[in-house]
């Protein structure tokens, strides 16, 4: 098995397909997505007056919200510890590198893109940073009622603002992954792990060129 820049070349994808995400990346994505929507649902009930009043049962909703967060943190930690850490590190290095072409892409130019386009890189950066901030402000909120020296008025504002920002982010993500014609094929990469080579060549040419150079095709 060869892992180079997060590209697993084995097990070999079907003919005409290229491997985009390994099992670790997909497990991480779907674990995070499931937890996100469970936390968003319970969180909105705790936050929005109209929903709080409609659902009631605050103590129960609070318990579900907190335990979902604990399960999320444990599952993410477990996947990272037991999974393909080398691959994840390579992915993150790739995500952090916003090169000339990426900056052009963000300015609206159709510059050639690598395995992740610049928008996908930003989405990953925002999602990861938001997750860490959600966790930090959430722990402080949980602690505040148990140890009132941590009852600052900032964490609840941060938690609320993150809810709005990540809602906007996830709506954009869902549109591009499920609806937008030229990007929605990427969903297959996150479900089955591979994508059509001709699609990748058109939308992520630098990725295909580089992997061909590496495998000597």
């Amino acid at each position, binding site marked *: 098995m060869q892992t180079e820049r997060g590209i697993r070349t084995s097990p070999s994808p079907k003919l005409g397909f290229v491997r985009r995400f390994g099992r670790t990346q997909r497990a991480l994505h779907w674990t995070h997505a499931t937890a996100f929507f469970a936390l968003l649902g319970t969180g909105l009930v705790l936050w929005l007056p109209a929903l709080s009043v409609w659902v009631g*049962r605050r103590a129960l909703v609070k318990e579900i919200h907190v335990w979902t967060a604990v399960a999320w943190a444990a599952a993410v930690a477990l996947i990272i510890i037991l999974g393909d850490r080398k691959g994840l590190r390579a992915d993150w290095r790739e995500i952090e590198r916003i090169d000339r072409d990426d900056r052009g892409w963000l300015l609206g130019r159709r510059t050639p893109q690598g395995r992740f386009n610049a928008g996908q890189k*930003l989405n990953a950066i925002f999602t990861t940073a938001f997750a860490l901030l959600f966790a930090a402000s959430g722990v402080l909120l949980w602690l505040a009622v148990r140890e009132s020296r941590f009852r600052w008025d900032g964490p609840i504002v941060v938690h609320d603002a993150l809810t709005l920002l990540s809602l906007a982010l996830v709506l954009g993500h869902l549109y591009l992954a499920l609806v937008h014609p030229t990007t929605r094929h990427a969903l297959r990469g996150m479900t089955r792990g591979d994508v059509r080579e001709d699609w990748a060549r058109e939308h992520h040419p630098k990725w295909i060129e580089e992997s061909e150079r590496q495998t000597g095709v």
Partner: protein
Amino acid sequence: MNDRLLGRAAFLGILGAGAVGMLWGRSVADLAGRLLPDQVAGILPTKGWRIYTIRGVPRIDPAIFRLRVDGLVERPLSLSLGDLRELPRVEQVSDFHCVTGWSVKNVHWAGIRFDDLLAEAGPRPEARWLQFFSEEVPYVDTLSLEQAFAPDAMLALDMDKKPLTGPHGFPTRVVMPRMYGYKGVKWVNRIQVRHDFVPGYWETHGYDSDAWIGKSNFGFIKGQE
């Protein structure tokens, strides 16, 4: 600029903005609350208030509403909203603090002091505690007579110079400004005068009964005091 640094700078920048927000986010949120139109403020809790209920806002018909005052009293009472409006009325302005971290500044309250209310019923000598029952069953809470007789504590009927709205406890709620908001039972329909202490709803979920702001709900780190 180094390509590699750009994404990392963005990542660390977001984390930094979040950390700043944890310390100074309140002032930013207050500003946003003032700038946002009322329609948005109606959906998001931007004006400071959040409505926490355990069973939803009870619907109370003001025509048939009665506040019962019973237990260790000489003359048990059953007061209509009209009767309550006849009692001596007091007003005060105070900040409201929720234990979960949000506060509302300068809330104007008007209502009845507990010693005026109890004077009508005549508490017996062995009376020590007031247990408040909410229409939102099973929400209850307890104050000692001494706490309830604090000059700024009251059974409020009006908030910000208007009758209480449903979400804020219509028709009557407890206001205890120097304690966290969970002591302020909303939709109060019964006050039982007791000799013994009974823990309130959130107190059975681990909160302190003597919920003085800044002086309670400690002990998670140092152990129970």
